[in-house]
């Protein structure tokens, strides 16, 4: 039958797509629809119309096809509701990048949806079921667009304007007429001298100026140089200094760009995610978003189909970032640390607690709409960046999961970020931990899945997802891992212990430190941020956590957490140290004695204990995962949220010496002594 799994190309050799005598026959149409039945029917209908049809069942594929061969298609028909990408998003992207006419279609004929099509720039909207008659006339949109382009290229504004008017009139005429009128309209065009020339000249064959990434970048650079308000086509053209480019080309592109910007800035909640590639190209020039952030996020979002909300959040964050800096007093952490994703969340500092409580937590709640303040978002962005780099680092270590993150973190400056990350290793659980962390975890999980930088945290973790028992966090990357402390990092190591319930006995035995002193580790971490000891701590934390034989629950929790995390693809690098431990389920994870191992549980344990001892006091209102979580954890199939909260709870509990679950949020500080060992 029809091969629906991929795009089938049925293009003829005519790649130039120029107007031929048989026009509209040979019109190159790209059809995108996730419904296989419709796709097949449309293809058949279009073939009967003598068009060249390429069909696609995924927007991503369509985009890549278009990008590979910008001049290979004349028109795109796309469904509105598609699982991998919103049809309108695709519409915008195509309009911006390739400037092709796009027809939307849907079984949905609601006015709002149709209006959306209009505002997003669709040149037509067809209601399903589509009849062949509707398809017979789609060529008009191609003609219309080309005519307008000719006009643009024709010369002065005035002339263009007049001609434009005439052309549009002609175009209207031709569009309302039926297919046979093509020749008529062509003749009308002939009457227009310039148009006639255009028909014969190469412009006809190249009706569009292809706004390539480079060209667009130049454009954006010019616009930003002039200032968006002062950017007029003439000046932009001068600045760009691209031979062959006309003022009209610039003018029309500018119009689109303005629309795009307007939409972007007006949409902080509803992120259409348009022009991801667009954004990436203009990152440098993108006004409000810190280039990196915007870029990363956008790219990531695009790549990972980040939920609109997340994207919006990120964008907002990016926006906020440019203007605000997190002001959380983080004595222990560098200012920079604030930016690292992990930092905000996991900070347990006295003073910070407050702040954390107030706002920071969000960090991890990437995918979850939270009341994140811009700066926090900025932090996130930054973190994301860090994560990105971290991911890269992790990847370097051969962390499979890292690859996911890799995609995202292209721009990170590894070194710096790493440092920051490491310093921020201390998993800082925001005071309001329980939920936020969970969210974070979830978000991270989501992100991770989406390949978001955030989830980048879990780069180390990713592998877990792939195989529940792969806790192969390269130990070397502990630093990175720790850095990318997943907010959930609170359960560092826990997640890493993916193997459900498969905790080698050894691991448990490894645990040196006080059992379940996850929390303490956090505190300590915050203090230690500057040292690599953070890593240790984290590792230890993980280790202890994992290995904490303390209670079955703990282990189970970890197991559960791990499995959940693994399942969710939490690349919780949090398991920084843990990753190591977790590596290879079934393997003694924390071979404390395993000196070679990156994680020396034992050795770490000692210093860690010390740390804990020192820092326990500091823990005040830190949110500690509720130890009580232990019990709650593994009885059922947890949803991400459940698991994470459970984990968090558990940690808290441990810290609190297994206090009641409610402690999680009111945890008042605990001492190691309290922690049940």
């Amino acid at each position: 039958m029809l091969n629906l799994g991929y795009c089938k190309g049925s293009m003829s050799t005519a790649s130039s797509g120029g107007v031929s005598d048989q026009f509209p026959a040979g019109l190159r149409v790209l059809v995108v629809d996730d419904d296989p039945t419709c796709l097949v029917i449309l293809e058949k209908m279009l073939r009967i119309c003598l068009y060249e049809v390429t069909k696609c069942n995924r927007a991503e594929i369509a985009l890549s096809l278009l990008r590979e061969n910008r001049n290979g298609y004349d028109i795109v028909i796309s469904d509105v509701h598609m699982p991998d990408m919103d049809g309108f998003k695709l519409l915008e992207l195509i309009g911006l990048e390739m400037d092709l006419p796009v027809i939307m279609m849907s079984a949905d004929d609601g006015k709002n949806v149709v209006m959306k099509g209009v505002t997003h720039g669709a040149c037509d909207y067809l209601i399903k079921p589509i009849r062949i008659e509707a398809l017979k006339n789609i060529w008009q949109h191609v003609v219309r667009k080309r005519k307008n382009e000719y006009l643009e290229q024709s010369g002065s504004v005035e002339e263009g304007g007049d001609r434009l008017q005439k052309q549009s009139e002609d175009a209207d005429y031709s569009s309302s007429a039926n297919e046979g009128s093509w020749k008529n309209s062509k003749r009308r065009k002939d009457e227009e001298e310039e148009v006639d020339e255009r028909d014969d000249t190469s412009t006809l064959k190249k009706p569009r100026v292809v706004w390539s990434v480079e060209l667009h970048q130049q454009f954006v650079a010019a616009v930003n140089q002039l200032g968006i308000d002062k950017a007029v086509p003439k000046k932009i053209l001068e600045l760009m200094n691209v031979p062959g480019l006309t003022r009209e080309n610039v003018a029309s592109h500018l119009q689109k760009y303005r629309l795009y910007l307007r939409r972007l800035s007006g949409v902080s909640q509803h992120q259409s995610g348009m022009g991801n590639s667009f954004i990436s190209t203009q990152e440098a020039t993108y006004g409000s978003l810190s280039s990196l952030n915007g870029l990363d996020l956008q790219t990531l979002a695009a790549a990972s189909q980040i939920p609109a909300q997340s994207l919006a959040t990120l964008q907002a964050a990016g926006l906020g970032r440019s203007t605000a800096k997190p002001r959380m007093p983080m004595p222990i952490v560098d200012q920079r640390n604030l930016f690292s994703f992990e930092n905000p969340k996991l900070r347990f500092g006295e003073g910070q607690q407050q702040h954390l409580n107030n706002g920071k937590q969000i960090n991890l709640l990437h995918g979850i709409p939270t009341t994140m303040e811009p700066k926090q978002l900025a932090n996130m962005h930054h973190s994301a960046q860090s994560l990105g780099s971290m991911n890269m680092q992790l990847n370097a270590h051969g962390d499979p999961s890292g690859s996911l993150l890799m995609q995202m973190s292209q721009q990170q400056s590894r070194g710096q970020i790493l440092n920051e990350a490491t310093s921020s290793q201390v998993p800082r659980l925001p005071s309001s931990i329980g939920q936020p962390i969970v969210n974070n975890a979830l978000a991270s999980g989501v992100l991770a899945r989406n390949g978001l930088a955030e989830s980048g945290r879990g780069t180390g973790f990713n592998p877990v997802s792939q195989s529940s028992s792969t806790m192969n966090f390269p130990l070397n990357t502990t630093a990175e891992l720790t850095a990318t402390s997943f907010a959930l990092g609170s359960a560092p190591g826990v997640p890493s212990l993916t193997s459900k319930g498969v905790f080698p006995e050894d691991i448990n035995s490894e645990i040196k430190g006080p059992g379940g002193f996850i929390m303490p580790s956090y505190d300590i971490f915050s203090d230690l941020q500057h040292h690599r000891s953070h890593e240790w701590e984290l590792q230890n934390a993980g280790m202890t956590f994992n290995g904490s034989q303390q209670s079955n629950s703990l282990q189970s929790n970890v197991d559960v957490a791990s499995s959940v995390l693994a399942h969710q693809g939490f690349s919780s690098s949090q398991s920084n140290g843990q990753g190591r431990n977790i590596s290879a389920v079934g393997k003694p994870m924390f071979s404390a004695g395993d000196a070679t191992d990156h994680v020396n549980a034992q050795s770490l344990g000692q210093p860690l204990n010390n740390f804990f001892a020192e820092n326990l006091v500091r823990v005040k209102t830190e949110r500690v995962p509720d130890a009580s979580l232990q019990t709650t954890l593994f009885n059922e199939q947890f949803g991400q949220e459940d698991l994470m909260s459970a984990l968090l709870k558990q940690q808290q509990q441990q810290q609190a010496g297994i206090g009641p679950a409610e402690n999680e949020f009111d945890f008042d500080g605990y001492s190691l002594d309290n922690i049940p060992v």
Partner: protein
Amino acid sequence: MEVGQMQRAWVEYTRSLFREGFLDAQFQQLQLLQDESNPDFVAEVVSLFFEDSERLLADLTFVLEQQNIDFKKVDAHVHQFKGSSSSIGAQRVKNDCIAFRNFCEEQNIEGCLRCLQQVKQDYYLVKSKLEALIRLEQQIVAAGGSIPMEELSS
């Protein structure tokens, strides 16, 4: 049965399907798309529709069986089903989907479950009828005859 008889049977059967609302004009469109170069077009599309629908219905059933029903998902599936059934011309199924979506919007579990039953029922009905129709077509062609599409317009 000789070809002529089969052809007449085919015409009658098809007309009844339209009359009873199982199929609508869109199905005719599909039939028009079929030609010598593509003699199995309708059969192919229909079988594709069946495959897709089975999957959709299974997904729908699954989602509606959950403790916490994700109505957005339900709506997405129903919308998809509406699109494909309308493209095939399975009118009753399409109408069932429209009603289904309304209940989704209201987040009316009872209503949704009832709609699911209804849409399944109508789907299986139209499925068996289409299968019978196509079988008949194949028999006609095998016997050397052609499908008298033009008879339908009379």
